[in-house]
């Protein structure tokens, strides 16, 4: 059985930057970045949709739109994605 894939905060930041451009610089330590509202990073709901769509294609998972719509932080996005990744393992 393969090791389960888990996306880290830096992984998610890379995906968001690729899909929707580099984040706004924020005054937060790296370990706190996961709690910074996506809006403060400059990412709107479309950026989130674009990134979640990229994650779906890359990892062959499905992220329900209504759950993606609730996401406000990188930690919440990570939890949603990693839950799905664990289920399909």
């Amino acid at each position, binding site marked *: 059985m393969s090791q389960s894939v888990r996306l880290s905060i830096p992984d998610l930041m890379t995906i968001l930057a690729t899909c929707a451009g580099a984040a706004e610089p924020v005054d937060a330590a790296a370990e706190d970045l996961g709690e910074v509202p996506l809006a403060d990073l400059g990412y709107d709901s479309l950026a989130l949709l674009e990134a979640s769509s990229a994650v779906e*294609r890359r990892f062959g998972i499905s992220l329900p739109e209504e759950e993606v719509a609730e996401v406000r932080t990188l930690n919440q996005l990570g939890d949603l994605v990693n839950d799905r990744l664990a289920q399909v393992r």
Partner: protein
Amino acid sequence: MSTAVVTGLGVVAPNGVGAGDYWAATLRGRSAIGRIDLFDVEDYPSRLGGVVTGFDAENHLPSRLLPQTDRMTRFALAAADWAVADADIDRSALTATDLGVSTASASGGFAFGQKELEHLCADGPSHVSVYQSFAWFYAVNSGQISIRHDMRGPIGVLVADQAGGLDAIAHARRSVRKGAPLVLTGGMDSALSPYGLAALISSGMLSTADDPRHAYLPFDRKANGHVPGEGGAILTVEDGDWARERGAHVYGEIAGYAATFDPSPGSGRPGNLRRAVRAALADAGVGPDEVGVVFADAAGDADADRAEAEVIVDLFGPRGVPVTAPKTMTGRLYSGAGPLDVATALLALRDKVIPPTVNVVADYALDLVEAPRPLTASVALVLARGRQGFNSALVVRAP
């Protein structure tokens, strides 16, 4: 009735990025028409274009706007920034709902649309960018400018091919008259992508010449179609009283405007450009003798050139007014053409010099300006026509 004045210019043109560079190049007669190098045009029957060079979107726009913008929207956003900076607007006395945006579009975001349609066809719907939901729409430039500058007053887009750019400026004037202190307006197009060029070629109006000096010859007996270009201009238009009160630098007034539509092809009835010109002059309250220069639509098609020349000669007399077409250096810019001509006319009035038309040996009893010429009058007339019958005429007056 309140006047509408232009207080800021933002230009992205094939022969100059930024109003200053564009104007200097235009006065020098520097043409940017050449072989399109944005993609391989070898197999296309028309291979020449006016391509914007020296524009690096990364230098002008935040990273996050790049994945969601077509080339023409990047031009529009940069030009809007410059028009705002040029106008030196003090936002403290204005609310977001005071500020409007009125642009024209002829093609939408062709290159962006093509890329995503390719994803759709090759890989399926899940591979299409979410930004396709707006990035290729006609209204996208108005929307993006509105968001970037937090302008939430009257926002709209006009679509009338090459005439639309003047219509958008006139609509900005309308918004000012209804009470908006300030409106960003103009037009920006780029259809120089494989799909876009194919669409333009299907009009049957593009030149197939390969020599840039002989490809776009409006009012010349050798006229053989036009060369497509990209770019345009964004202008800051303000209420005249407001601009004066805040001590703004004023380029000139949008003094008159009219638009008409032609009868059905084959009806035998004449076109209505003449009515548009007469009505625009009447709207401005000026007679033909007060007009110091006409910026022609300059289609580069024998029938259309003759029709335009007849209107000019009829109203102004044979060789009765200087006529120019700086667009012979850029190609036709569709929705960007009218606004760029208006910006050029305002610069001409400011510097009291008429910019030249290049490469053309004029016919039709027109006094075509082939080298920069002094401009003494304070009024300029700008003409623009769109495919399938759109005619627009706009009069600008020096402050």
